[in-house]
């Protein structure tokens, strides 16, 4: 392996935290979604790295699954976003508090 595992972990950790920060800090639904995608990619990167480290293909297969699931998820999420936007004419996350206990 050319790249040491620590580097991969560092990068994916940094990506994950940045994604998390995006998710937590943003108020716009689409931006929150983007943050999620970044976090997922960080996880995928870790999996690929680990797969290469241990010379096992499982991790890479897992990442392919992850991509498939993510694309499905994004499709649904964007559809939801469009729908929500129609309902309230806004994409501010805090406007959607209908599930208040």
């Amino acid at each position, binding site marked *: 392996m050319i790249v040491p595992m620590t580097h991969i972990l560092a990068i994916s950790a940094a990506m994950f935290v940045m994604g*998390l920060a995006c*998710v*937590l800090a943003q108020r716009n639904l689409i931006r*929150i979604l983007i943050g999620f995608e970044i976090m997922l990619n960080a996880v995928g990167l870790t999996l690929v790295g680990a797969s290469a480290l241990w010379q096992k293909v499982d991790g890479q297969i897992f990442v392919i699954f992850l991509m498939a699931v993510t694309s499905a998820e994004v499709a649904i999420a964007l559809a939801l976003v469009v729908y929500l936007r129609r309902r309230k004419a806004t994409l501010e996350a*805090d406007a*959607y*508090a209908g*599930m*208040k*206990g």
Partner: protein
Amino acid sequence: MDVLLFLIPALPLAGALVNGLLGGLLPRALRAGIAVGAVAASCVLTLVLWPLAAGTGTRATLFTWLDSGSLQVPVEILFDPLSASMTLMVTAVSTLIHLYAAGYMEEEVDTARFFTLLNLFVFAMLLIVLADNLLLLFLGWEGVGLCSYALIGFWYAKTQNAAAGRKAFLVTRVGDVFLGIALLWLFSLFGTLSISSINAQAPLLDSGTLLLLTLLLLGGACGKSAQLPLMTWLPDAMAGPTPVSALIHAATMVTAGVYLLCRLFPLISLSPTGLACIALVGALTALYAASCALVQTDIKRVLAFSTMSQVGFMMLAVGVGSVSAALFHLLTHAFFKALLFLAAGCVIHLAAGENDLTRLGGMRKESPFLFWMFLIGVLCLAGAPLTGGFFSKDGILLADFARATPFYWTTWALSSLTALLTSIYAFRLLYLVFLGEPRDRRTKSPYLPDTMRWTLPPLALAGLLGGLLNLPPLFGGTERLTMFLGDLAGATLHVGLAVEWFLLLLATALFALGWALVHLRLRYELRSPSGRFGDFLLRAWRVDDLVARLVVRPFQWVGEVLWLWGDRRLIDGAVEGTGRLCLAGGELLRRWTTGRLSTYLYSLAGGAAAILIYLLIRAW
């Protein structure tokens, strides 16, 4: 032939089953007919099978009821002189009472239930009488308790009647606990519950055990026979229909306790102290009840206290060691007390439901027939010379006197005093009900059903001639009952002729004195219990108050405390507290679900961070 013995109790049971299951479908006359027929048939059967009782009697086993290890409870009947005489009395008197009841309940709606219970009552009593196994006896023992409860509270729509039934049930149950303990103990001592073998093995026991066993049996007998500490239920039991009162007082239930002690006499006679306790309880109860009977204003309550008093005499006879005297008095008492109760029922019927002595009076003119019947009953009760009651009571006093110890002389003096009081209250009752002028009384209903009327003469005859059963040699008799009982009769008496004459004359004198006192002084004086002492007697020495204060109220208090603190505070508190804690927790968590995405995301991040930190610490 032996197996036919089982028909004696089985017939009333069959009558009860038929009436209980199909009674509602049958015509009224048939319900009564079945009930009367069933008891009459077992009476006839007893007479037919009478030869079986001779000597040591006949023992018959039908099947084994319980068979568990060493516990063997066969359904076993012992038909010996003691149980045979008792069976004959129970069936004969019950037949007449059933017949009377058929007339008495003519206008009642629910006769199917009534006759079912009445037959069941007789069945349970016959089970007590005939059983040769204590557990079978106990079955009958509880059976009469149940039936008396249901019959005393027969008119349960009135709370007062239902309460009287409940009281009878609960108070006799206290005695049953003692009997139950005695049964268990006897089983653990002998490994059997057969009465015959317990009686045979009793001499092996040491005196302390015997005394305790005797006291336990006495406790059981006190409950059923309404003796001193457990007698409060009997006067209240008057709430039931009159035939029921007659049945409880004359033929069944209250005599069960005396019979139990007679049945186990070989055991209890081994403990002189135990016998003395029985004698003391009997004598004190007799005196106590007679004193209460002096001032009662309810005709049936007078008779109730009188029963208690006479049963006290029987207990005294057992305590003195003379089973034959006890059984003799039991038999004659059954006749004349049934007569008195049934006649009182007729009086109440004629007076349109009036049973208050202050309002009755002058009944002689309305029904001379009833007057004569009642007079015979009163003469027997008061111990008029040559009546059945005279001989049987005298037999007890004689047996008591013959023991010739200071203790037994004391009980003798007490019971002689009781005999005087008996004469007084019996005649007071007669004068107040039948003689003089009618007092404040509603118009009478002159109609008296024939079945009610014609059951009285046979009882009167039996009461008058009851003395012939056990006529002492002094009158040319042969003490037939004592002879018939043989070994079961208890201690034999050795008294001089002079003592016998002295006691006879004393009994006559007491009877005459009582009558003279009533005739000359009390006559129609109602002795309204206004005085403190009269009131004290009227309320039966305030025993009910005492019981309420000593038992009922502490019990209520304990119940209240347990309910308030144990149930409400502790258990409900714990359960409701848990619920409230969950609610509060939910309320707390509810605030978290703001419905805002950011909050959830922060929670998610916080949770993930917490897990990470935890894993880091673990990995370290």
